[in-house]
Structures are given as structure tokens and as C-alpha cells.
């Protein structure tokens, strides 16, 4: 995007620039988070709920350094995706044919989702802090970590349903998002929703290490960030051109 010289100092230009900064936190920290994901020794394959307390304790004492590296990185950089979701909020607030109700609900849902992620991370790190404590307790911390990380998808489901609804309600002559984004958001909500099953199932695709609860849920989330980065980039460019900020 090329900012016009005459628009350089205008508030509407700063509005675009701060959104661009927020947008670009997604690929920058996305790469960092991907490294943290690949580095966690318990994701390939995801740790089974079937492991005994001794196995879990041994996992934490055998891989302490990598667990800490991965989870500290998640701790520092995970919430850095929040500004990216706030760009979605700002764009939802630009939708002309609706109130801002969906946007504010999306904002609070995003905060809930990020809080749960930050909380799960602390449980992994506490388990890795003293892997020599009673194996039963290491397993308790590990169970809490996985439970909080995988099962409470409600916030993400709500966010995506709200985004989908907002796109469908944005039915004026100049919609912010293309209509397929609405379907895509609903699809992401549906793909993430079954992971709630991890709260009760200990085996099968719905357990926290299952194809649905782990891979579909996390894959759908990661893909959503990638797809929405491209979508938002175009949306921001269009906003900038329409407002005479860029060409």
C-alpha cells in the first residue's frame, strides 16, 4: 500500500497505519508461534490422555527444556495475536447497515479466548517448573493444561458466528467483507466446535489428542488467521483508497 504524501499526517491515515501494524503482528508472531508449536515435544503426536502419571511425569522431566522454550514463547507471543483480531472488530464497526453490536460482542469473545490460552500456558509451565513433584500432581497440572487449552472453544465459536452474522447483515451496496467470508467464518466455528468434546471424551477423535479436537480445531484456527490476514489486507487497502489515504 502506498500512502499518499498529502494524506501523510491525517487522522484517517493514522487509523489505517495502526490497523496495518496490528494486521502485520499476525504473520510476524504467527511464525514465532508456529516455531513454538513445532518445538513442543508433546504435540507430535499430541500427548494421550491414556498416559499414566509416571509417563506424564517422565515426559516433563525428559523434555523440560523444550517444553519451557515452547510454552514461554507461547506465553510471550500468544496474546500478540489480539491486535489482529481487533482489526476485525474495527472493520466490523465499519459495516454501514448494522449497529456495532456484533463488533463489541466479538471483542469480548476474543478477550475470553485469549485469557483461556494464557491460562493453559501457565499450567504447562508450572508442570515443567518442578517435574520432580509427585507424578500424580504433574498429571493434574498436565490435565488442567490440556483441558483448558483444547476444550473451551466457546469463545472462538462465538467469535466466528458473530463475524459470520455481521457479514450477512452487512448487505448494503458497499460491504466491508466479501460474502464468502461469512460462510468461511461459520465453517470455522463448526470445525472448532466439536473440540468441546475433549471435556468429556478420553479416547477417539474427540479426545484432546484426537483428530477432531486437536488437529481440526487447531488447524482451523491457524488457517483462519492466514486467510483473514489476506482478506484484511485487501479490505484495508480498499478502505485506504476509498478514504483518499492511499492508491
Amino acid at each position, binding site marked *: 500500500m502506498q500512502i499518499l504524501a498529502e494524506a501523510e499526517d491525517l487522522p484517517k491515515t493514522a487509523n489505517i497505519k495502526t490497523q496495518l501494524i*496490528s494486521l502485520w503482528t499476525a504473520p510476524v508472531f504467527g511464525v514465532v508461534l508456529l516455531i513454538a508449536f513445532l518445538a513442543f515435544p508433546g504435540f507430535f503426536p499430541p500427548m494421550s490422555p491414556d498416559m499414566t502419571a509416571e509417563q506424564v511425569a517422565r515426559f516433563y522431566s525428559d523434555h523440560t527444556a523444550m517444553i519451557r522454550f515452547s510454552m514461554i514463547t507461547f506465553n*510471550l507471543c500468544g496474546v500478540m495475536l489480539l491486535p489482529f483480531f481487533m482489526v476485525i472488530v474495527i472493520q466490523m*464497526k465499519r459495516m454501514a447497515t448494522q449497529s456495532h453490536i456484533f463488533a463489541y460482542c466479538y471483542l469480548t469473545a476474543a478477550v475470553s479466548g485469549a485469557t483461556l490460552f494464557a491460562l493453559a500456558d501457565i499450567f504447562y509451565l508450572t508442570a515443567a517448573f518442578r517435574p520432580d513433584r509427585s507424578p500424580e500432581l504433574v498429571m493434574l497440572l498436565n490435565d488442567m493444561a490440556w483441558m483448558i487449552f483444547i476444550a473451551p472453544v466457546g469463545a472462538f465459536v462465538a467469535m466466528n458466528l458473530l463475524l459470520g452474522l455481521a457479514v450477512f447483515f452487512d448487505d448494503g451496496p458497499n460491504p466491508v467483507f466479501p460474502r464468502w467470508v461469512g460462510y468461511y467464518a461459520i465453517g470455522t466455528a463448526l470445525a472448532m466446535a466439536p473440540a468441546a468434546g475433549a471435556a468429556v471424551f478420553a479416547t477417539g477423535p474427540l479426545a484432546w489428542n484426537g483428530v477432531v479436537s486437536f488437529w481440526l480445531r487447531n488447524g482451523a484456527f491457524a488457517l483462519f488467521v492466514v486467510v483473514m490476514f489476506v482478506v484484511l489486507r485487501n479490505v484495508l487497502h480498499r478502505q485506504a483508497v476509498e*478514504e483518499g489515504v492511499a492508491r
Partner: protein
Amino acid sequence: MSSTISAQTSPSAKVAENGRTPRAGKRDVWLVFWIVPAFYTAFGLIFFALARVMPPPRPDVTTDQMVHFFHAHALTIKIGFGILVLIVGGAGIANGIVAFHMKRMTVGSVMAYAYLGAMSVGALPGCLLVAFCFLTAVYRPGRDPQLLALLYDLGLLSYVGSLGCFSTAYFAFAVAILYDKNEIFPKWLAYVSIWQIVTEIMAVPVFVSKAGPFAWNGSIAFWMGVVVFGFWLSCVIVFLMKATELQPVDEPPLE
């Protein structure tokens, strides 16, 4: 274009009028403002004097010593965190007024929302979880010492080690200040906020180190962070006051 933009041009137009409008600020904003120093004073008293989380008890102690910590401070932990769970809404108010003044900047709302959101994330792992852990620990003092040790670790690691949420908030705060043309906050406050991110990164080793400067009670991981935070918070309160004072009484409500 959109209503967002028209709302943002009006505060910038107000800058010129600042000289003429009475330097009084709005009554409702003043009311909220005074809660901020009151809350943080109470917050400091609770964490330093009552709950004994600051300075934090040592990480390099035996399980028995952790049990002893909870026994020795059970009463003040109950009083302190009992009050905290009542007044913790003050943190929301403090974040709210900062976000409010950020929305008065000429930079759009995205950074204000990111600040609000990231600080809200911090409320649970970065503030309340240690209260829940300690309150639960002293609730049944006869509990298995191993369980008390777990609550001790979980509480203190979450309190000292919740880094990303606050870093994100400081990042948003700094970017907004640097782009703002309304001069709601001075530019150098952005650099102090960036220094806050540095102290968060310096606290990374608390998850690894159990003694020395990088432990959760260490000179670098903990004390440097506390000193910079104290300075940052004092500046924020002073400049929130200034921003409230300089806000024209007739400035239209934010969108």
C-alpha cells in the same frame, strides 16, 4: 466514509480550541480518574503488606517452608486477597479510562481495543489466579504439603510470569502514543512503555531459574520489573490526570 472517521476528525479539531476552553475536564471522567490512584494504592498495600506476594517468597525452598509460609501469613492473605476480590474491578476501571483517552487520539480505535483486550486477559493469570491459589491454600491449612506447594508455584508463576498479555497492552499503548497528533500522552511515555516490554522479557527466566537474579524473586526478573512498572504507573496516572484536565468540557461523547 464511515462514521469512525468523522468521529476522529472532531477531537483533532478541538486541539486548536484548547486555549479557549476552560481547563476543567468532564465531571464523569474526573470521578473515574480518582478511582485509579485509589485502586493502585490499595493494590500495592494488599500485595506488599498483606498477601506477601511482593516481594515474592523464595522459589528455592522446601515443601515444608512453603507450608510454613502459608501458615505464617494465613490471616493477612485472607484479609488482603479477600479485599482484592472485592475491589479488583478497579483494575477494569483503570484500563477503561486509559482506553477512553486512547480513543480520543487521532489514531483510530484499534490500539485502544487491543490495550483494553490485552489488559483484560491479564486480569486472570496476571492478577487474580495468585489470589485464588493462596486463598485456596489457606482455606484448609491441613492439606497435604505437596498440594500446598503446587498452589504456591502456580500462584507465583502466574503472577510474575504472565508476560504476553501485558506486553501486548504496552505495545498497543506505545504505538498509539507515537502516532497520536492530539498529544493526549507525551511521546516519551511510549518509550517507557517499550521499556516495560523489555522488563517482561527479562522475566522469562522465572520459569527456569529457581535462585539468583532471574528467579521469580530475583533482582532482574522481579525487582527491575517492579521499579519500571512503578515509574510507568506513576507517569500514566499523572498524564491521565493531565489528559482529563485538558479534555474540553464540550467535547462530544466518543462513538
